[in-house]
């Protein structure tokens, strides 16, 4: 990735718009991409610009101009990934970071700048930190995101106070608006060279010629109306964080700080009677990498020890453990989803206590092995055996499952459904069945032959043909006991001589399956 157009951070107080591209020390390098069946220059470095190359020039022409050219292939996926990594890093300044592909970022720094010593200092911190990592940065702060972005296209480091946008933007060329090649060329042809020229024309003229979206863009650049940015993540409800002048790397220190943060978070939530349903711990490494670890809970958590314990379980069980590298310089704990906690009398009502304990246990297990692995079961309204039960995460459905309406069993009847059910029925070999529609006399399952002693059935279950993709052969289920007393639930797929037919309409061979085992 090479610079030019230099990228900026679009900032507002508003946004900071910024384009960041990696600079390489290589002399005269360009990145090329295939467009319209020609290999064109996608981006290029400062030296290449001075040699007279420009974006959009075919590679062959470029080689003719400068034979000693280093050429790289464009990798849009990697570019995007880099931009997202930078956005992750920018999370340390504000929770509201939006992408402006391909090179830009918007940071909404409303109410954040004073934490870093004011707008000027913040701009300086961001620009220098990114420059140090080898990116070409162009950043600006303005009241609207589009205004900031327009400024970054031309100069870097501008801070525009509210109300001065039009003045600042007017002398800039129309290409800085980023309205697309067709519109920019159209404006040039009309003799409108700067944004000020365009703004001086009547609005209806511009709209009639270039469309309403362009007019809106122009107005936003002039500070008359703001385009909302779409942040990558919704801002969390509560954030607590700790910055370290000296990066921390040892597990014990990290754990200690995390539990201190948990205490602070709980205090903050407690004031408003809230409890956390989803927590995120973010670890900002000194080299810019950010690792975020989320933990979900079934009930709003209001205890610092519980939060601490959940994160300890989670960190313990990580597949790729937290890598401190050269240390973390910022640890942040945020509650991204919170709920109002209903206070309940605990001491007298044993049920409340039990429910709390059970959900705390489920949260802990889920933190360690994953929420989808701890399930409760809900009945489904169908008679297809394998679909009769829905397994849902226990964290979110514990209360529903406790009230679920399961079909009542019939008094004094032996079990009609097996205790263990195979998710996929297993095929069995049946040598012959004496009566065409009858049960087998013996069958082979998992290489063991079972002689049938007792049979009950058939119980005929037709597929749900009224549903999309619900059609299938009717099944005849038999409950079978073999000579050892093992009890099976087997079925024949399809009715004899009617349903299973091959392409020529001949009856296909009958298949048998074992679907479950009775106790």
């Amino acid at each position: 990735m090479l610079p030019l157009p230099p990228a900026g951070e679009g900032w507002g107080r508003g946004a900071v718009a910024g384009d960041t591209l990696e600079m390489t020390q290589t002399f005269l390098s360009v990145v090329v991409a295939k467009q319209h069946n020609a290999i064109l220059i996608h981006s290029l470095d400062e030296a290449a610009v001075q040699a007279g190359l420009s974006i959009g020039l075919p590679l062959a022409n470029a080689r003719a101009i400068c034979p000693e050219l280093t050429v790289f292939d464009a990798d849009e996926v990697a570019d995007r990934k880099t931009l997202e990594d930078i956005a992750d890093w920018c999370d340390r300044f504000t929770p509201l970071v939006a992408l402006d592909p391909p090179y830009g970022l918007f940071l909404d720094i409303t109410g954040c700048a004073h934490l870093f010593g004011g707008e000027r200092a913040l701009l300086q911190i961001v620009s220098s930190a990114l420059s140090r990592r080898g990116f070409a940065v162009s950043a600006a702060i303005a009241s609207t995101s589009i205004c900031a972005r327009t400024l970054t296209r031309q100069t870097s480091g501008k801070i525009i106070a509210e109300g001065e946008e039009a003045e600042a933007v007017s002398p800039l060329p129309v290409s800085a608006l980023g309205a697309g090649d067709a519109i920019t060329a159209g404006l040039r042809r009309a003799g409108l060279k700067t944004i000020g020229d365009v703004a001086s024309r009547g609005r209806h003229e511009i709209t009639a010629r270039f469309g309403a979206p362009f007019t809106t863009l122009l107005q936003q650049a002039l500070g008359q109306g703001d385009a909302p940015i779409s942040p990558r993540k919704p801002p969390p409800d509560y954030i607590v964080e700790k910055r370290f002048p000296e990066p921390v790397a040892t597990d014990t220190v990290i754990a200690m700080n995390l539990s201190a943060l948990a205490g602070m978070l709980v205090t903050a939530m407690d004031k408003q009677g809230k409890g956390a349903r989803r927590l995120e711990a973010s670890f900002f490494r000194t080299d810019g990498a950010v690792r975020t670890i989320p933990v979900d809970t079934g009930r709003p958590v209001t205890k610092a020890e519980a939060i601490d314990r959940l994160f300890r379980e989670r960190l313990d069980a990580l597949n790729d453990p937290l890598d401190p590298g050269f240390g973390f310089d910022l640890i942040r704990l945020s509650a991204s989803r919170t709920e109002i906690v209903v206070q309940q009398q605990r001491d007298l009502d044993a049920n409340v206590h039990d429910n709390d304990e059970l959900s705390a246990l489920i949260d802990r297990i889920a933190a360690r092995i994953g929420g989808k692995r701890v399930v409760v079961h809900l009945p489904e309204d169908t008679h297809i055996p394998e679909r009769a039960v829905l397994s849902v995460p226990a964290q979110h459905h514990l209360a529903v499952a406790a009230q679920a309406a399961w079909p009542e069993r019939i008094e004094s009847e032996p079990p009609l459904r097996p205790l263990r059910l195979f998710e996929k029925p297993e095929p069995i070999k049946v040598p012959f069945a004496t009566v065409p529609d009858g049960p087998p006399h013996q069958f082979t399952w998992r290489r063991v032959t079972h002689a049938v002693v007792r049979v009950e059935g058939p119980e005929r279950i037709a597929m749900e043909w009224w549903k999309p993709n619900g059609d299938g052969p009717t099944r005849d289920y038999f409950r079978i006991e073999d000579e050892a007393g093992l009890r099976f639930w087997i079925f024949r797929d399809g009715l004899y001589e009617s349903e299973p037919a091959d392409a020529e309409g001949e009856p296909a061979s009958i298949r048998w399956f074992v679907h479950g085992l009775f106790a």
Partner: protein
Amino acid sequence: MSTARTLATLRGSIERLEQGAAHDLNKIALGHAAADSVLHGGLACAAVHEVFAEGHQSAAATGFIAGLAGRVSPRRPLVWVRQDFSEIESGALSMGGLCELGLNPRLLVTVRAPDTDAALRTAADALACDALGAVVLEVWGQARQLDLVASRKLTLAAAASGVTALLLRVAAEPRPSTAETRWIVRAAHSPPSAPWSAWGVPVFDAQLVRNRHGPVGRWIMEWNCDECLFSEPSAYPQPLAATPAHRPHQAQAFAGQRRAS
């Protein structure tokens, strides 16, 4: 409460009165008179019980352990921890089947552990939670991790919280452990009747091979789905229990007692 269940409870309490204070009161009668008397009133709560079965007998063992769990904690939540592999090998626990046995699927929380280590750790965690009634740990095959140390940990956790631990060991050989009782369960064939008549309730051939506080034995048990309780099967020829090698034969022991008194 039905008569049979009342009867079983009363039998248990009479048993306890007869035994005196030597045994803790925290026992749940299974309902099978002979087994209850050997267990001095029933299955001990807050302890570890193991149920072993061969691979193809997994369903019977599951039924037996579900019955034990149902007896121990009919109203409190039940956590069933199992490995992913055991679902492939012997099928998932079916809620319909659980309902048919007279148990309550609303109280069940299933944990699908990826491996034995995770299953063991989850079970130990769950055992520490006193809101539960019982924890079933289902492990397939000879698990190296489930050694004497692990078993001791489970026992201590169970004793501290009062939750009963039930270990379902399919396709495994019994190894030394701190379990209170150890059972080997097989499916028993239905009572003899006409071949066209329906087979009835689940019948188990349950062999008690270890009992820390009493003799062992082998019985045919029937699970009574309506009463939620084990019972002697009606009209079923009882197999003769093999005399355990390390304990005196029951009849001899009684004869000795009589002589002494």
